[in-house]
């Protein structure tokens, strides 16, 4: 059987989205089925079966998973132990001596590895790399046996200064692997040979903690797919937006912590590029939060380090996602100073907004949208409810907002939306203006169910140039799986003055790390259009603490060339150089990217389609800008390419509703996106 299908699968809390690309036919099919709790692979395989009758025709399955994310957030990883240097078993629990909040001293913290499962062995390496005390493999084995006796399924080995010389740690890991009954053994310095003990220990411990859970899930998934006749490759989306082979995901599950959202950002990049936008701000609005990420000049912003929760630090490049507590379920309230606030408290999805009728009586953003006529009470998105209770929403806004502020209920509902929009605008400003980027060069791309109701306001509030609503905002992450490239990041601490840096040594190190990355690309058995390499140094002035990333040319590693690149990067970030102060090289980073072939997004565009006047579902009372309008509600998916609508109006489709504000207009582009801009 010829293999013609590439399948993208995004498993969310409520739905599993499947995106099937038939490469031979150049066609796309999509489905959404309820996620199967407990065993996600069931819905996964069933969903694919709806689109592809014969699994042997599938070449690749690419998966964005939240199994790792959820295990971290819900603290449901495996029973994990750590073997570490004498005197340092509390590194994980002591963190970097911080606290969760600036104001208020009511923090607590429990690390994922219990103190009784943190064992020490005698060994010590100095910062110079000199081994002061050699490790005894027998002592390590005996510690490992004790952890097994205590019920540990996974173990992490972490030694001080392992970044400077990993010899002791390597010997210890070998000893543990010789007796450990599973593959769940993580070496801190293998996964992060970088200075800073807490960040390395935390990343490695979380990797070990995730291994049993993620491996179990992926094994079962693989088995189910194989049992259905699938014999292609399975790829997993990493938090950096690249994919990796399933075997690598089992060894490095910590790299899947933001797998799901990263797939969405990759889709946004591709959709944006195809539509002619190299600069995109993605806006994912859920029940409790609003997540923003940025793509500048076709590259997604990556954070070197991310805290999944207080004290749960992962140091590995991840899609940088800024989250604020402003979602559909965010509660509107008046504080004691008489000011209208929205969030961070949220009614979530259960009990959810007042209009769900599940017990919450305090008004939310969704209630405000409903009262303003922007949500169809008879057709709730998500499929859980038959209809929404407008009257209850109105009463709640009257009681909690309109009454206390002396406003009428519609004005109060619009005020709630304005405050929520302002908070979202703040999040966007945070990722753009604060980095010296002009939002006017960007398009906002909403996905998820709720974002498209607020996207027009972002044009007006932040000054983003346009808003680009993908044709299927609800399955963007699944689409992202299909288009994501393969990516492998490697890092190595150098910690030397630039002046004495030996270009030959750096060149050799680049070659070594290049080899690691290429080997990982090759192992995955995936076709690439091209392989790209990025080489970066983390650099700083001698005496400074924080580094700046400096992209360098691997063909010219002379001190002068690197100094010039450092000056450029430093000036771009801080505006002025510090003349006469020597520079230092902290880390070397080498990234290999295997570009996967992209499909033509025009496959998503409507075939045929109708003029706007033939797509009007109803004329509805819609409140906007302080007045009621009789506004059309269009059937979005029925609109032809080139169709133009003018605000105020609504566009409905099964997975989202788009609101075009007064003063804005939307047009369907060649790929079926709706591009909203000022009239």
């Amino acid at each position: 059987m010829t293999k013609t299908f590439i399948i993208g699968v995004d498993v969310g809390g409520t739905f599993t989205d499947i995106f099937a690309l038939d490469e031979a036919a150049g066609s796309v099919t999509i489905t959404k089925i309820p996620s199967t709790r407990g065993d996600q692979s069931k819905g996964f395989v069933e969903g694919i079966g709806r689109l592809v009758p014969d699994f042997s025709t599938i070449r690749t399955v690419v998966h964005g998973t939240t199994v790792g994310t959820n295990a971290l957030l819900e603290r449901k990883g495996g029973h994990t132990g750590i073997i570490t240097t004498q005197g340092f078993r509390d590194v994980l629990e002591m963190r970097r001596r911080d606290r969760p909040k600036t104001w208020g001293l009511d923090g607590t913290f429990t690390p994922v590895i219990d103190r009784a499962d943190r064992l020490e062995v005698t060994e010590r390496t100095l910062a110079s790399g000199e081994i002061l005390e050699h490790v005894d493999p027998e002592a390590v084995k005996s510690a490992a046996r004790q952890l097994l006796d205590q019920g540990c399924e996974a173990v992490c080995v972490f030694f001080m200064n392992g970044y400077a010389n990993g010899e002791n740690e390597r010997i210890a890991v070998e000893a543990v692997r010789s007796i450990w009954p599973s593959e769940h053994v993580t070496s801190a310095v293998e996964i992060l040979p970088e200075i800073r003990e807490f960040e390395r220990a935390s990343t490695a411990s979380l990797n070990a903690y995730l291994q049993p859970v993620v491996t179990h899930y992926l094994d079962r998934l693989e088995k189910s797919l194989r049992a259905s006749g699938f014999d292609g490759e399975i790829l997993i989306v990493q938090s950096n937006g690249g994919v990796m082979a399933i075997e690598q995901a089992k060894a490095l599950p910590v790299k899947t912590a933001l797998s799901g959202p990263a797939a969405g950002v990759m889709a946004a990049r591709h959709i944006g590029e195809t539509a002619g936008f190299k600069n995109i701000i993605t806006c994912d609005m859920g029940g409790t939060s609003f997540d923003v990420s940025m793509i500048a000049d076709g590259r997604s912003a990556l954070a070197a380090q991310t805290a999944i929760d207080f004290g749960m630090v992962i140091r590995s490049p991840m899609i940088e996602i800024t989250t604020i507590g402003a979602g559909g379920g965010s509660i509107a309230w008046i504080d004691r100073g008489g000011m209208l606030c929205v969030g961070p408290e949220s009614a979530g999805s259960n009990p959810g907004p007042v209009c769900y009728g599940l017990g919450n009586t305090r008004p939310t953003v969704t209630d405000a949208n409903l009262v303003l006529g922007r949500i169809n009470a008879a057709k709730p998105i998500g499929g859980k409810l038959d209809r929404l209770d407008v009257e209850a929403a109105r009463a709640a806004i009257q009681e909690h907002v309109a009454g206390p502020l002396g406003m009428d209920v519609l004005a109060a509902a619009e005020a709630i939306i304005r405050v929520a929009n302002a908070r979202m605008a703040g999040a966007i400003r945070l990722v753009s203006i604060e980095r010296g980027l002009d939002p006017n060069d960007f398009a906002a791309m909403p996905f998820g169910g709720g974002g498209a109701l607020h996207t027009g306001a972002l044009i007006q509030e932040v000054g983003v140039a346009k808003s680009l609503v993908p044709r299927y905002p609800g399955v963007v992450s699944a689409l992202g799986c299909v288009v994501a490239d393969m990516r492998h990041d490697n890092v190595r601490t150098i910690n030397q003055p630039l002046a004495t840096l030996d270009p030959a040594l750096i060149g050799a190190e680049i070659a070594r790390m290049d080899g690691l990355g290429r080997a990982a690309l090759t192992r995955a058995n995936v076709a690439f259009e091209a392989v790209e390499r990025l080489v970066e140094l983390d650099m700083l002035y001698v005496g400074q603490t924080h580094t700046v990333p400096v992209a360098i040319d691997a063909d010219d590693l002379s001190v002068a060339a690197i100094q010039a690149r450092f000056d450029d990067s430093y000036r771009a970030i801080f505006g002025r150089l510090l003349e006469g102060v020597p520079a230092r090289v902290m880390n070397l980073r080498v990234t290999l990217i295997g570009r996967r072939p992209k499909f033509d997004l025009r496959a998503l565009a409507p075939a045929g389609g109708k003029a706007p006047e033939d797509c009007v579902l109803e004329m509805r009372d819609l409140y906007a800008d302080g007045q009621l309008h009789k506004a059309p509600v269009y059937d979005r998916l029925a609109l032809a390419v080139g169709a133009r609508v003018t605000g105020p109006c609504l566009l409905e489709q099964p997975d989202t509703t788009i609101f075009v504000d007064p003063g804005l207009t939307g047009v369907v582009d060649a790929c079926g996106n709706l591009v909203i801009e000022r009239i």
Partner: protein
Amino acid sequence: MMDPVTLAILGGRLEQIADEMDATLYRAAFNPIIAEAHDASHGIYDALTGDTLIQGKQGLPIFTGVMAFAVKAVIDKAAADGDLAPGDVYIFNDPYRGGTHLSDFKLVRPVFRDGKLFCWLASAGHYHDVGGNVAGNYNPRATEAFQEAVVIPPVKLFAAGTMRRDILDVMMANTRQPRSMFGDLNGMVNALDLGERRLSELLDQYGDAVVTEGFADMRERARKLMLARIAELPAGTVSAEDFLDNDGVTDTPLRIAVDMTVREGGLTFDFSRSAPACRGPLNISRGTTIAACYVAIKHLFPEIPANGGVLAPIDFMIPEGSILAAEHPMPTGGYTETIMRLIDVIFQAFAQISPERAFGNAYGTINALTLSGRRRDGSRWVMFSFFGGGHGGHAHGDGLSHGNAPISTSTIPPVEVLEAANPVIFRQWALRPDSAGDGAHRGGLGAIYEIETLEDDTEVTLFGERGRHAPHGVMGGGDGACTRFEWDDADGTHSPPMVSKVMGVKLEKGRRIRLMTPGGGGWGAPSDRDPALSAEDIRRGYVTAPQTTGMANKQ
């Protein structure tokens, strides 16, 4: 009043400007006390009074209270000289007018609109070394400011946009770390430039009048919120007192006492029963005292916005001659210790009337530890850091172990970074068993840091506290363990006569020191603790045997 929707939006935009100034300095700063420990702060201040209008969320909490006094000092100076111009930047570290201690430099810059003063921007940061008798400026034996550091009164660093090289030269000539000072100073200037740019954009967009009205409304809103919280408290007077070990010069305890009165429409903090000014560096200026009260209030009521309106309903009684009203040239280097004790007594007083909001006392000392010497190649090394301890138990659970000081949001440098930069190895970086105060919700644990030197003639200075007076629990909660400091030499193990302060200790290569920091005080009676939690504490080794919580004290 401005409509609440516009106010919410405007407030967020303004706060973002201060946040962005914070972020710029953290990234650019040279010395880790700013870059890692975030010992810095930025804000926007009233044109006439210097009152705080807007404060960054990440800034050092104690600065957020003290900056208003710093800006006021510049306002007075500019009025006296009569030559304020756009593009001026004032610089100074005078603690009597500007608050805190000589290590902290404040840069203050006017913002003009249409030729008129509109408001002030300020940047404060802790510099690595500003001269004085001890590298790093923590001199536990100072009896005058002159032994602590060079004193710079408010002077113009920039006059009408041009840097005055002579002022910079004077400053650079008075530090052991000129490169670090130059880098930090540049970072602060960058932050002020950026703040002015962002603020101008916002003023152009909203109009000056709207923003002015917004400032007034935000202040009024904070005042009202504070009043509403005060109204929930029972009227009357509650008292609390605690002690500092000594002033580093004379070994007698120093009382810090508050009599707090809740009255109709306000609060009074009366500090009259506190000790008189001391010879050593534990004095704080009146401005610092008020700023410390602000920090305590903000911890107790985190929901109130950070601006001067919070302090409007609060009166202060701080008698002249008090340890809490330092005058020139009294030494103030150890101000952190005094303000933490002040915050502790306010928490103790609140616990008597508002148990749900109360916290057991946190470890209550920064334990500034300096190791220094010369490497074999003759180069000088100085390892200086603040160390952590336990937070107090609270209504929601046990206290945080190894937290940062309530007056800061600092993080500690990684051991690997300290070892890479200095000839030392850490032998222990561990939680300290039996250091937490017992309670229904016990305190968090303090830490043990054991450090071995790799060079001869290593000199050790410790500026700490809580060596004799433990962090207290609240509502029947037990006390945390005291600070304990030891060093080894050929004769055995020693502890400082002044318990928590010592300078001039010399170590040979291979010798070790041990700093054991306090845990936090407990919340509620130990008899109310869930027995399952007590069993967990023993299983995890937080407590070595039943009823030994907080017992590290008595060893």
